[in-house]
């Protein structure tokens, strides 16, 4: 039973990402949407824990939310995959259930 964890909060504002990483099983995936997008940035304070998480989790980011926030995909941590809303829907079917860390 694998979980799609959805994070919509900036790692600099709330503990959602930390809590998710503490409670996510190794085979589960993480999707960053809305202000959760800010966790993708290279050379940022949260980058190290995101890079470590990539060892155990597929991490996805919602491209329209990335673009809305003016983040250059070139500045994204290597290994994070971009999806659009169609890809978001597909992820919710690829995994058994979703957990939104509101």
């Amino acid at each position: 039973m694998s979980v799609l964890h959805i994070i919509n909060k900036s790692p600099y504002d709330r503990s959602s990402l930390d809590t998710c990483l503490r409670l996510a099983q190794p085979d589960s995936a993480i999707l960053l949407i809305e202000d959760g997008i800010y966790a993708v940035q290279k050379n940022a304070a949260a980058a190290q824990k995101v890079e470590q998480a990539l060892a155990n989790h597929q991490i996805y980011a919602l491209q329209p939310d990335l673009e809305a926030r003016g983040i250059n995909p070139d500045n994204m941590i290597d290994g994070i995959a971009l999806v659009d809303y169609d890809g978001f829907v597909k992820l919710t079917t690829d995994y058994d259930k979703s957990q939104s860390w509101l």
Partner: protein
Amino acid sequence: MATKKFLYVNRTAPHGSIYAQESLEVVLIAAAFEQDVSLAFIDDGVYQLMQNQDTSGIGSKNFSPTYKALGDYDVSKIYVEQESLELRGLGKDDLMPLTYEDEDDDWAEKDSIHVVSSKELAEIIDQQDVILNF
């Protein structure tokens, strides 16, 4: 109707916003559907279970005694994350005692609150069919 495993994840402190109160309303209604229900209290959600909440000074409804009725609604799997308690300098003694009567054990009164590690809670989350977040 098939029985599914429902987990209600509570990560918001009470009184500062309505999420805790309206989450509790969902859990009470859900009891009528006879699903396999668990509650998780994580992060600031653990503050929902604090003893001695008194809202008389802020004029809002004190819904905290309602948690004590959960046992009567057959909600007896209440998981509180140890790490969340520790981060906040809290222990189980700071929480309201919540109990249920075990029909499989001659209606013996038992503790509903299980303080669990992150690792244990991760497994519990993994076992669910439906997760609702508040």
